[in-house]
């Protein structure tokens, strides 16, 4: 690249010069950015602080805050609890929000860097034509394993490994119904996205079967657990798998051949945004090669920006986990948007699975309530009686 095409913002970041980065300078514009926790190169651990670079470049103040699940982000936006300018929902959530009219269509003229995004990640069913979103990071679900505890030959089993009774008590499972059900469905040979309540019922049986083998249902605790050698097997996201392997070399990760879920976290603009154009500038900035590179280095997820791959260190560039076999990708699915009805059924099944091993029946709650009421009535009566007795003297 020729130097004159670039504006050098910091030592590590240069951005393309044929974009008017400075049109908001001095206008006191600020952006509310809502991202996953620790999901951007933020200057910690000797990384590059891409946000302050953006602020320096454009004069836009970024108010950066974080969330921990798609659902909490959704709940907050849905309720009108806050107005953001840029959010980073995952695929299925993105689709759901788009369906519900919670997102603004992007003005692609303001995001020329969209051109640098690999075709592989564009125009998916959750957002056909990328009307609402620009992918930010991509990953797949794989299984991390501890080489000291797992026989490499067993990896042949694919997803069924997670149902292998030899690893009883050493399996960690997602504490997230969507991913769990996807795996269960896969082992049943169906699509990873439930399409009927029958799917959900069958998957539930499968998950209940698995439950005795599971040590714990975890999300990000998985880092500690796997790195600390607490468990042998854990399905998780490939990007995070890379991070874990970097911390603990005795860990490995594989993606089952039969196919898996792939996930995208994408950048969108909520309907309530007041600064669409500035938000689009931010999205464009995030798609700059240098920025995407720094983010990838920090987060270890796969960047959809095509040019990044070449700039990565060899072990990442050639990693099967970061850039899996396209055929495998072909066999994999994105989580789809599913109906409210199925969602409710899934939540219900999920909680049934979680409270599964105990015996108990529906009558217990009313009985409990009745007992409580009886006790209260008795109590009130007793107090009355005592009062009366006192008054008698």
């Amino acid at each position, binding site marked *: 690249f020729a130097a004159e095409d670039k504006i050098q913002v910091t030592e590590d970041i240069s951005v393309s010069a044929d974009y008017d980065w400075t049109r908001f300078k001095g206008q006191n514009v600020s952006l509310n950015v809502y991202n996953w926790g620790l999901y951007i190169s933020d200057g910690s651990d000797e990384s590059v602080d891409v946000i302050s670079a953006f602020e320096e470049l454009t004069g836009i103040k970024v108010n950066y805050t974080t969330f921990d699940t798609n659902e909490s982000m959704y*709940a907050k936006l849905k309720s009108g609890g806050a107005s953001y300018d840029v959010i980073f929902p995952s695929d299925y959530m993105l689709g759901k929000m788009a369906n519900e009219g919670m997102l603004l269509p992007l003005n692609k003229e303001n995001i020329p860097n969209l051109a640098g995004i690999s075709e592989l990640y564009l125009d998916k069913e959750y957002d056909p034509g990328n009307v609402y979103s620009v992918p930010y990071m991509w990953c797949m679900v794989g299984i991390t394993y501890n080489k000291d505890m797992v026989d490499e030959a067993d990896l042949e089993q694919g997803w069924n490994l997670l149902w292998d009774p030899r690893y009883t008590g050493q399996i960690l499972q997602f*504490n997230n119904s969507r991913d769990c059900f996807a795996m269960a469905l896969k082992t049943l040979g169906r699509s990873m996205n439930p399409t009927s309540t029958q799917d959900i019922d069958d998957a539930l049986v499968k998950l209940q079967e698995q439950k005795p083998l599971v040590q714990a249902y975890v999300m990000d605790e998985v880092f500690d657990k796997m790195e600390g050698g607490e468990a042998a097997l854990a399905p998780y996201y490939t990007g995070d798998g890379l991070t874990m392997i970097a911390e603990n070399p005795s860990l490995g990760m594989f993606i089952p051949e039969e196919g898996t879920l792939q996930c995208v976290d994408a950048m969108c603009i909520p309907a309530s945004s007041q600064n669409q154009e500035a938000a689009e500038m931010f999205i464009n900035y995030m798609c700059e090669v240098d920025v995407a590179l720094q983010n990838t280095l920090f987060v270890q997820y796969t960047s959809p920006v095509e040019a990044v791959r070449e700039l990565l260190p060899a072990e990442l560039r050639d990693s099967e986990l970061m850039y899996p076999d396209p055929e495998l990708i072909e066999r994999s699915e994105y989580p789809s948007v599913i109906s409210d009805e199925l969602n409710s059924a899934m939540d219900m099944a999920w*909680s049934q699975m979680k409270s599964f091993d105990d015996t108990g029946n529906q*009558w217990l*709650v009313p009985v409990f309530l009745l007992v*409580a009421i009886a006790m209260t009535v008795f109590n009130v009566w007793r107090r009355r009686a005592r009062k009366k007795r006192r008054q008698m003297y």
Partner: protein
Amino acid sequence: MIKNRKLAAPYLVWMVVFILVPLAIVTYFAFTDKAGNFTLENLMIIGQYSTVFVRSLLLAAEATVICLVLSFPVSYFLSRQRAAKQKIFLMLVMLPMWMNFLLRTYAWMSLLENNGIINRILGFFGIGPFQMIYTSGAVVLGMVYNFLPYMILPLYTAMTKIDNSVIEAAQDLGAGMFKTLTKVLIPLSAPGIATGITMVFVPSVSTFIISRMLGGGSNMLIGDLIELQFLGNSYNYNLGSALSLVLMVIVLLCMSFTNGFDDEDMEGVV
């Protein structure tokens, strides 16, 4: 001025707007569906979650009883110390509450894990390792740890009001240690016990962080269930409201049973 009822006006307004109205909204949602039509379905569905309720109540009850048993002697000993010492000990009881709740629980994870500190120490002596984390025992432990001060403080407050001479009187009349305990000490600290039970039982029933972190999420409690409605796939706040309502009713029943909302009893709790 000293009994100027007008002074309560700002709070009363505040109370109505920010306590009662929101609860009314919750109640409204509990009895409507997503389209805003009246329905009892939300409440009916709850029946299917009975196991969750039962387990939550049982675990919370277990934690409460353990807290009570542990705190009783502590509070008694504290209440019999000199005033200056009592102050220091009280501070010591309160101090852990200043640490972030999540971090304290995290610390317990470090202790209890299979490769955690306790197992490492035990391994040093050639014992173990034991599976401690991700058992319901660990959940109860987490509850006990986090809510113990809420039991100690009201018990202590109740016990400072027990005159030493009453205990001596019991001994004088022929009561040994056990009888003094059952016939005098326990009945007299009853208000404190009641408050303590409420203060431990309620947050134990509704916690979801403890069960997730120490219980490995394999057992769902009411707190998780409510959270699931607001922060789950289905985003069913109607059901969430209904669950909240039922939980609130249970809690209020428990409370009306233990103490009659007397602020005197609340003293020192908080």
